[in-house]
Structures are given as C-alpha cells and as structure tokens.
C-alpha cells in the first residue's frame, strides 16, 4: 500500500476550459457531486480566444486533490488542469470596500490606511468612501480588519486568481 498523504491543505487549481456556455456548471456540478470542497472559483478569458481560465481554490489532502484534477480532466470541455505550487505562484484578488465615514477624522484615517495598503479611493459620498485594493487575500483581510471598526457598508471581492511565476505555463 502506498503512503497516504492525508495532510489537508488549500490548493490552487488552474484550469483551461472551452469558453462556452455551461462549462462553469459542469465544473461546479462536478465539485458538488463528488463532495469536493470548493472555496472559491474565478473565471475569465485567457490568452487564447476560445479558452477561458478558471482558478479554483479547494481544500483537501493529496488524494482528494488527485481526484479533483482527474475528474476535471475527464470533462470534455476541460483542456488542461494544473495544481499550482503555492511557492511559485502569484495569487491576487480585487476587493472593493465601502466604508462608513461619519466624521472628517474617520475619513482621513481611512484614506491613510488605504494609502498604506496601496489602495485607491474610487468613490466618495458625504458619508462613505469606497476603497479599491488588490493583492493576496491576506493583505485584503488585513485592510478589512483595520477599517471594520469604522463600519463597513459593503464588501465585494472577486476571489483570488493565480498564475505561476517565471516562464512556466500550464
């Protein structure tokens, strides 16, 4: 018997899929049906015209991950699947945060925080500021934790998308 690598960790799976209707449903349905835990999924066009790139964040041990990639590969509309090595992968997320800014003091504090995190203020109203921030999910969490005390009205996150460093492609 082979040794089980049953340590559960978060995996970043990058998949090239045909860019046509129903593909997301096939992938999402597969995850539900096989009982795989999907934390996040982002889809967008890729460098090739008819292909889309999916970035899937899923948790599981090596055995689960192996099944995920194999089952994904079985889908006719899926062209390539790769479990990205977290060590050499760049992961980024976009987040929009609408913060309640009741006073002038709060307003300037929020702007300062946004600047520290290299965020941008993209909308202003008498009582709110909206920050745009990109980065790894941890950085976004950190900013949210800071401004939460002022009162967050709304948060919209894209979920992480990822690409491997260097010349390597999937």
């Amino acid at each position, binding site marked *: 018997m082979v040794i*089980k690598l049953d340590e559960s960790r978060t995996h970043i799976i990058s998949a090239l899929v*045909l860019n046509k209707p*129903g593909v997301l449903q096939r992938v999402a349905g597969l995850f539900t049906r096989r009982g795989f835990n999907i934390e996040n999924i982002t889809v967008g066009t890729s460098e090739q015209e008819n292909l889309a790139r999916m970035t899937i964040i899923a948790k599981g041990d090596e055995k689960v991950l192996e099944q995920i990639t194999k089952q994904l590969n*079985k889908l*006719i509309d*899926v062209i390539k699947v790769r479990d990205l090595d977290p060590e050499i992968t760049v992961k980024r997320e976009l987040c929009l945060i609408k913060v309640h800014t009741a006073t002038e003091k709060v307003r300037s504090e929020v702007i300062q925080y946004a600047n520290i995190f290299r965020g941008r203020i993209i909308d202003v109203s008498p009582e709110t500021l909206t920050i745009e921030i990109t980065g790894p999910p941890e950085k976004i969490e950190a900013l949210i934790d800071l401004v939460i005390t002022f009162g967050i009205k709304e948060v919209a996150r894209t979920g992480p998308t990822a690409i491997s460093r260097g010349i390597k492609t999937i």
Partner: protein
Amino acid sequence: MKGGEAIIKSLTDQGVDTVFGYPGGVLLPLYDVIYDSNLRHILVRHEQCAAHAADGFARASGRVGVCIGTSGPGATNLITGIATAYMDSSPIVAIAGQVATGLIGNDAFQEVDTIGITMPITKHNFQAMKAEEIPGMIKSAFYIAGTGRAGPVVLDLPKDVQEEEFEYELSKDLELPGYKPTKKGHPLQVKKAAKMILNSKKPVILAGGGIILSDSSKELLRLSEIIEAPVTTTLMGKGSFPEDNPLSLGMLGMHGRKVSNLIVDECDCLIAIGCRFSDRTTGLISEFANNAKIIHIDVDPAEIGKNVDVDIPIVGDAKIILKNLIDVVEKVKNVNKTESEWLKHVLKFKQTCIPRLSFDEIPLKPQQVIKELSEAITDDTIVTTDVGQNQMWMAHYFTSRNPRKFISSGGLGTMGFGFPAAMGAKIAMPDNDVVAVCGDGGFLMVCQDLATIKEYEIPVVICVLDNRRLGMVSQWQKLFYNKRMSHTDLGQSPDFVKLAESFGVSAESVEKPGEMRETVEKAILSGEPYLIDVIIDPEEILPMVPPGCGLTEIVGEYKVERETAGEILYKPIGKEKSGD
C-alpha cells in the same frame, strides 16, 4: 437539407440501423423524416425501455445504441436508462427533443433542462442551437460514447433546429481538444507490473467489465494461464473469463462466491483489470486484499486510487496493456511446467465450496431453476438479469462462458432493466437466443413493453422468478432489520400468465423441478416472445457479506454441492495473518 434530415443522415453515417424511441410534440419534424428513412425505428411503450434497450443493444453487440425521447417528460423518462448506462460504462447516444430555441428558459410546455439534468449522468452532452452544428455533434457524440471509457452521450435538439434549412457540411476533424483517451499503457509501468507478478507467490486476477468493453477475454485467459493466477470477476466482468475453466473462481464481493472472497483475502498480488473497486465488490475497503500488492489497469485515470490505494497503476486500454504484459512475462516465464503450490491450494479449496445447484423441493429453489435454465440454453444465448435476488442468484450460480452474454445493471442497480435490455440485445444479435431473468417486482415496472415485443415479434424469453416480494430488500430485512418486513410483500396481483396473454404473448407457469428446462426449450424453439412465470421459494436467501464487513465475513448458510464430512475449515497457506 433540414436539421431533422441531417440527424438521420448523420446517424446512418455512423452505421446506425436501429433506434429505440417514442415520439412527441417537439420531435414531429424528426419523426417526419424517420417516416421516409431506412432507419429501423422500434416504438417502445415507455422511454425508459428505449434507453435500456439501447443499452442492451450496446452491451450485446459492442456497437453504440441509440434511443430517442421527446422533450420534458420524454427526456426525464430516459434518465434512468442513461444513468444505468453511465454507471456501467455502456456506449449509448440518447437523443432528446427540446422546445424551440426561442422558448428555452420560458418554462414552455414540455420543457425541461435536459442538459442540466443529464450533466452528472453522461460522459458529455450537447445542445444544438443551429442545424449546422448537428453533423459535427453527432459525429462527436458517437466518438465520445464509444471510445476511451465508454458511456452515454445526450443530444438535446430543439424543434426549430430540426426544421431549419442549412447547407450540409461535415468537417473531417472533430473539434474535441479536451478529449484524448489514453490507449497505450506506460511501458515502464508494464515492466514493473510484470516484475511484481513474477515475484508474487499467490497472484489473483480480478477482471471487470473493462475486459468485455475492450474485447480482451483472450488476452485475459492467456495471462492467467501463463502466470497461473486464478481469476475472479466483478459483476460487470462476468463472462469475461470462462467460468467453467479450472482457474475461474466466479464472482467476488458482497454476494460473491466463497472461494473468491477468501482467496482474494489471501492473495499476495491482485491484478485488477478494468474494474472500479465498487463497494459491492470490495466489502469494507480497509479489509480488502490486505495481504496483497495491487496492480490496477484501467482506461480511466480517475479510477486509479479512487477507492483503493494501488501499488502499480497502468492507464490505458486493457487489450493493449494485457498484450504487452503477456509479452514481458512470457520472455521470463516458461508456461505450465508444474502446477504451483498456490494453484494446488486454490483448486483444492475451490472443490470444497462449489455451490449446490440441485434441489428437488417445491416451491422451486432458484438454484434448481438456474441449473435447468443453463441446461436449456447454449453458449451463444444472451442472458440478461434484472436487479435484486434474481440478479445475484444468476451472478452466483449461473456459469457464464463468453463475453457479452451476461448483461446486468451493476452500478446503478436498476430494477426493470432486464426485460428491455433483452429486447435491445435481441435486436442487435438476432441470431442469438435471448433470455431475460427478472424478478416479479422489476418486471412489473416495465411490463408494458410486452406490447413492443409482440408488435415487432421480438422473440425474447422472459423468466419471471416469482416470489411475490422484493426479495433482496426482504432478505436484508430478515437479516439486519429484525424480520420487520416493511413494504416488501407484493401480494398476489397480477397473474403474470394472463398479463402476458393479454398482450398476445404466450406464457405459462412453472412450479416443479424439471419443468423449467422443458419450458425454456419450448419457448426458445417457438421463435416467439414468451413469458415463463417461475414460482420460486420466497424464503431462499443467498449467503452474503453484510454491509460494512470484510469479504471473508459471509453470513447465511453456504450450501455446497459436494457433501463432505463435517465443515471444511479454510486454511490459508503460508504465514498466518497477523492480528492487526
């Protein structure tokens, strides 16, 4: 050309001569084309039977079976048959009508999301939004269904697309960049496997349905002879290896033969080919083949390591891999010098637990019924089963010698499969006799298709093993639920002989030993559809491995053919198993 004409032309181009179907509103344009075509259309009486018949057609012949149902309820009625084909990797193409493209999403009359519903139970599915897509789609559908790990493909065809005029054009190439099934096994893995087999002292082969699908029974026989390995099969693998061969152990698993279950537990090298280690085959996974290194050959990479951890996986077509494996092993090993210790031990033990088949009791014992059935048919007879006790009795007691001659719903376990599958098998293989062994419960689920076999004069012999109950469920109630027989008694209705006769199908009832053989022979000779109502002992129980137990923990009396003094204890050769 119109879309509907393109469908028929494309089907014909794929070599399709027969389809099983049921028309409906949105299929009117297609059926209008069928009216003038040379395609043989079998009008079933329920779409589920169309799908099962296409499945039986595929399993009996190896060709892709085709079924047709209308939108909405027509499509949902096909579902059970599609799921059955999916679980058992049977190549069928199911064509479903759909409401016109402009109405899709509006909850139109007889609209259902066929694509969404069939996604998890098909290898792939297609929806044509333009007639020009039809030729390529149908070509792709047949290619996907029949290659790699076979399986069902659904085509969803809206009404207006069937009517649309277009310029017929079929490109040579299929546009399937994401579908490249592996055929050849990795040579290094083959070498490793050969080495492991040659180093093993107690090898066993576990043959699954993949042997039948890849047509590699000859190679399997050859390999087993060279390496002197006994062969056990899964339910789907039944017929892949001649069960009257001394090396055959019969089926493995929950309802498997005692010899199979105990020998697999003892073996030191398990060569599993074209099987998926279903829970019904392995029993409790942690107890399965614990003394063995496992080699797993399968065409579907996702099956490797899914249920059982394997030591040497080889992905590819079983026929090619077996040929390679035989080549490598043959170079090293001389064939059949003397019988190995292992084989002597296996054969000796096998002799002690050959199941008893002869019983002269009334009501009839299923073993006796199967024995007489076997005497009445030939090696060319195709036997289908339903699901439940009838199926497991057949799997356990019936000796199958050839591939594609034992057809059963293994994975999904679909009651009502046996009869329509037999109908499809007979259409595919008109020169072979076809016998369906059903239970009374399962047969009643599909009995309306007696009309189909009568109208088309499809000479299928239906044997209803009639115990007036849901035998398998009641067996579990008896064994595991304190004999609380909740809703498993089917009562005295109907009279199966009269039922058949009302459809114009000849029928008679069998109650005593000796009658079964006579009646089956007569039924086959009649050359007409025939139903035999076999009154069997409702109390008969097949020994089994309780759910959640290891394969050696068989409960129920295992009645053996040869009476020997006292109970023969099973003694594994070699080292005793350690306590952990």
